[in-house]
C-alpha cells in the first residue's frame, strides 16, 4: 500500500508569483480587461459625451474638454490673462471625436504602469517614492509662496500679510494661483477618468476594491446621465444634455437584429461584463496560486489544473460574451416574432388585442417580451443538455488528438 502513494512531484513550470505575472493566460486576462475598459470608456464618451446643441459651451456630458474649456475661457477673461498649466495636446482639449481621449488615456496608462512597477519594489522604496511625490506636491504648492513671503519680510524688516497690500509686489499669495490651477486641472481629469484610472490600477495592481470603484463610478456616471436627461428634469433645468431617444427605432444593425440606438448600449454592457469578469478572475486565480504552499506551487498536478481553470475561463469569456450579445439582441427582437406569430391568427379578437398592446406599448412591449425570451433561454437548459453536448465534443476532440499523436 505504501508504494501506491507517490510523493508530490516537481515540474519545470511552477505557480510562483513571478512566473504567474508572465503567464500568458494571466496576461491575456489582464489585457482583455484593459482593452474592454478602454473600449467601454470610449464607447461611453461617444454615447454620453455629447451636448444637445453644438453652440452650448458646457453641459454635464462625459467630456472633460468641455469643463477644461470653460475654465480656460474664464481665466483668459481675467485682467491678468492666465491659462491652465497642463498643455492642451496632453489633455485633448481642441481635438474632436475620440481624439479628445486618446492622449489622456495614454498618459494615464504610463502613470499606472509606473505605479504598478513601483508596487513590485520593496516597501522601503515604495514609502520613499510616495513621500517624495507628496513632498514635491506640497513644495510646488506652497514652496515658492512661502520663500518669497519670508524673503520679502526679511528684506523689508517688517511683518505683513501676503495679500491685500497696496504694493502688488507684496501680494505673494499670487504664487499659489499657478499650483492651484494645476491641481484643479488634475482633479477634473481624475474625476472624468476615474473609471479608467481605478480600473487600470485594479487590473494591474491586483485590487478588487479598485475594480469595484471603476464599475461603481461608471454606473454613477450612467445613472447621473439618465437622471439629468430624464424628461422631468430636462423640462425644469436647462442642461443641454443630449438625451437618448425615448423609443427604440427600426432594427437595422447586425443584420436587422437590433436598432442603431441599442448597439452602443449593448456593447457597453458587454464590455462592462468582460472587464469585470476578467479583472476579478485575474485577482481570484493569482490569489489562489499565491496562497498555495511551496510544495504545491511546484506540483505538476496543481500547475496543470491551474492552466485548465485559466484556459476554460478564457474560452468561456469568449463564448459567454458572444451568446449574451446574441441572446440580448434576439430578446430585444422577440416582440416582432410574437407579433408575427399572432398575426397568423389574424382576425380573431385575441390576436388583435395582443398585437395592439405590443405595438402600443412599444419600448415596454419590447423589454417585457425580451425578458420572457431570456427566461425561456434560461429554462432551455432543462431541455437541451448543453454541458453534455459540449463535453461530448470535447471528448471527441481529445480522442482525435490522442489518435493523431
Amino acid at each position, binding site marked *: *500500500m505504501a508504494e501506491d502513494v507517490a510523493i508530490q512531484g516537481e515540474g519545470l513550470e511552477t505557480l510562483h508569483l513571478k512566473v504567474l505575472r508572465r503567464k500568458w493566460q494571466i496576461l491575456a486576462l489582464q489585457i482583455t480587461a484593459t482593452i474592454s475598459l478602454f473600449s467601454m470608456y470610449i464607447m461611453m464618451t461617444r454615447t454620453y459625451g455629447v451636448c444637445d446643441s453644438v453652440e452650448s459651451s458646457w453641459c454635464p456630458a462625459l467630456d472633460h474638454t468641455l469643463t477644461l474649456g470653460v475654465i480656460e475661457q474664464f481665466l483668459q477673461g481675467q485682467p491678468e490673462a492666465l491659462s491652465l498649466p497642463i498643455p492642451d495636446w496632453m489633455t485633448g482639449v481642441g481635438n474632436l471625436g475620440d481624439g479628445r481621449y486618446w492622449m489622456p488615456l495614454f498618459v494615464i496608462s504610463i502613470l499606472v504602469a509606473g505605479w504598478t512597477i513601483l508596487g513590485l519594489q520593496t516597501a522601503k522604496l515604495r514609502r520613499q517614492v510616495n513621500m517624495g511625490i507628496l513632498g514635491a506636491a506640497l513644495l510646488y504648492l506652497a514652496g515658492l509662496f512661502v520663500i518669497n513671503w519670508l524673503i520679502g519680510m526679511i528684506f523689508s524688516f517688517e511683518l505683513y500679510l501676503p495679500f491685500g497690500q497696496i504694493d502688488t509686489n507684496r501680494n505673494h499669495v499670487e504664487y499659489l494661483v499657478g499650483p492651484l490651477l494645476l491641481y484643479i486641472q488634475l482633479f477634473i481629469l481624475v474625476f472624468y477618468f476615474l473609471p479608467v484610472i481605478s480600473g487600470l490600477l485594479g487590473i494591474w495592481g491586483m485590487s478588487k476594491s479598485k475594480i469595484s470603484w471603476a464599475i461603481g463610478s461608471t454606473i454613477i456616471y450612467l445613472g447621473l446621465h439618465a437622471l439629468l436627461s430624464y424628461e422631468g428634469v430636462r423640462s425644469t433645468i436647462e442642461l443641454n444634455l443630449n438625451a437618448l*431617444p425615448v423609443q427604440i427605432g427600426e432594427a437595422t444593425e447586425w443584420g436587422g437584429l437590433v436598432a442603431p440606438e441599442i448597439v452602443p448600449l449593448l456593447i457597453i454592457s458587454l464590455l462592462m461584463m468582460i472587464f469585470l469578469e476578467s479583472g476579478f478572475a485575474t485577482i*481570484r486565480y493569482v490569489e489562489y496560486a499565491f496562497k498555495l504552499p511551496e510544495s504545491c506551487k511546484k506540483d505538476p498536478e496543481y500547475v496543470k*489544473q491551474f492552466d485548465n481553470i485559466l484556459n476554460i475561463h478564457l474560452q468561456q469569456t469568449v463564448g*459567454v460574451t458572444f451568446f449574451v450579445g446574441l*441572446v440580448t439582441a434576439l430578446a430585444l427582437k422577440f416582440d416582432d416574432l410574437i407579433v408575427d406569430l399572432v398575426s397568423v391568427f389574424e382576425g380573431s379578437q385575441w390576436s388583435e388585442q395582443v398585437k395592439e398592446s405590443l405595438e402600443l406599448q412599444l419600448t415596454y412591449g419590447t423589454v417585457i417580451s425580451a425578458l420572457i425570451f431570456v427566461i425561456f433561454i434560461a429554462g432551455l437548459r432543462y431541455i437541451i443538455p448543453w454541458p453534455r453536448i459540449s463535453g461530448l465534443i470535447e471528448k471527441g476532440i481529445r480522442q482525435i488528438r490522442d489518435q493523431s499523436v
Partner: protein
Amino acid sequence: MWTRKASILGAGGVSLVLVGMMMSNFQMMVFGVAFVAFLAVNSWITGHGDIQVVRTLSADNLYKGDDLYVELEITNPSWRRTQQLEIYDNIPHEMKLRSGLNYMRVNLGPGETTRVRYVLRCPLRGHYSIGPISIRYRDSFNLFSQEMYVDHRSDLIVFPQVREIEEAMVRSRTPKMYTGATTLRTPGPGTEFFSLREYVPGDPFKIINWKAFARTGQLIVNEKCRDAVTDVFILVDSRDISRIGTVLKNPLEVGTVAAASLASYFIKRRDSVALAVYDERLSFLPPDTGDKQYFKILSSLAGVAPKGAMPLQAVTNALSSRFSRGSPVFIISALEGDGTTIPAIRDLAGRGHEVIILSPSSVDFERLVSRIPRTSYEVLKLERQNRLTALAGFGARVIDWMPDVELSQALLQVKMG
C-alpha cells in the same frame, strides 16, 4: 445555488428594467436585459460534483510522530466538465499538514483524472478517520455554486511510540528480570517432543505420526512439550486525573508509551503480555504472545482516553483470579487521587507478585501548564515521595518518572524497599 454576485446581478438587472420603464429610459432597460441574459447564459454551464474519489494512505497503522502520505485520485466519469471544482479532504484536527495541501481547485474535463498528494504528521495517538471529501463546484464567473460531500473515509490507528528499553533492563539491578520461553514437562502447544499417544477425534492431521501408524496400524499422534512463558501484566491508569499536563506531555501519554515499550520488549522475548486499562471501567486483554497480541495491545493503547476514577484496588480485586501465580505486574500510574493504592499493592505483593510501579510525576507535569508556588510544590513533592517510599516498603519496585527523563533512563532508577 445563486451566489451573492448572481443575486446582485439579477436584482440589479430587474431593477434597471423596472426603473427604465418608469423613467421611459430604454438604455436602462437594455442594460437590465443584458444583465439578466448574462445570468441566463451562464446557467447553462454550471458544473457538477459527480466525481469518483479514491484515497490511498501510505499506512493504515503508524506510530505517533510518524508521517502519513495521502493521495486522492479524483476522476470525472461523466460526459460533462466539472467546471470550477474545489476539493477539500477533511483531516482530523489533531493531525498537521507537513507538506502539500488537502485542497485543490480543478476543472476536470470528461473522463479526466487528477491527484492531490499531501503528507500528514500524526503527533497524537488515537483512532482517526480521514474524510469525507467536501466539494464545491461553481461556474467560471462565480454565479452559481453548490456544496456537497463525498462520503469516502479512511480509518487509521496511530499507535503510541515504542521506545527501546532492552539496554535499560540489562543495566538494571536485576540484569534479566524475567526468563524468556522455557519448556515445562507438560503436554501442550510447543516445539519439543513430549510423548506419543492415541489419536482422538479432533486432533489435527499434521501431528499424526505416520511411521508409528505404519508400524502399528493404529493412529498415533506426537505430543509436544508446552512452551511455558512468563505472563507479564501491565496495568495502565487512564483515570481522568491522568490528563494533568499538556496535550503531548501528561501522565497518560507517557504511560501509554511506557506500556507499549514494555509490551514490545516482553513480546519480543516470547513472553505473554496482558494489558489492563482502567478509567471509568476496566478493559482487560488476556495474556498472550505474538504479533497479533502486540497489535491488540497497541490498538488498545491508541484508543485510551482519560476518564472516570476507578480505584486501583477494584482493578486488582477484579483481576485477582486472572493473575498468574508469581507473575510480574507493572503498574503505570501517577498514583494521585486514589486512596486504595497502598492496600492494593500490599495485597499484590502479599500474593507473591513482583510489583513494579512506573509513576509519572504528576506534580512536575502540572508545573508544565501552571505555576505552582515553590512551597506548595515542595509540600506536594514531599507527600509524593512519602507515598512512593511507603509503596516501596511493601516490596514494590517504584520508579519516580520525571517529565524530562527518557523511559530507558527512568527504568534504571528502581527504588527498592
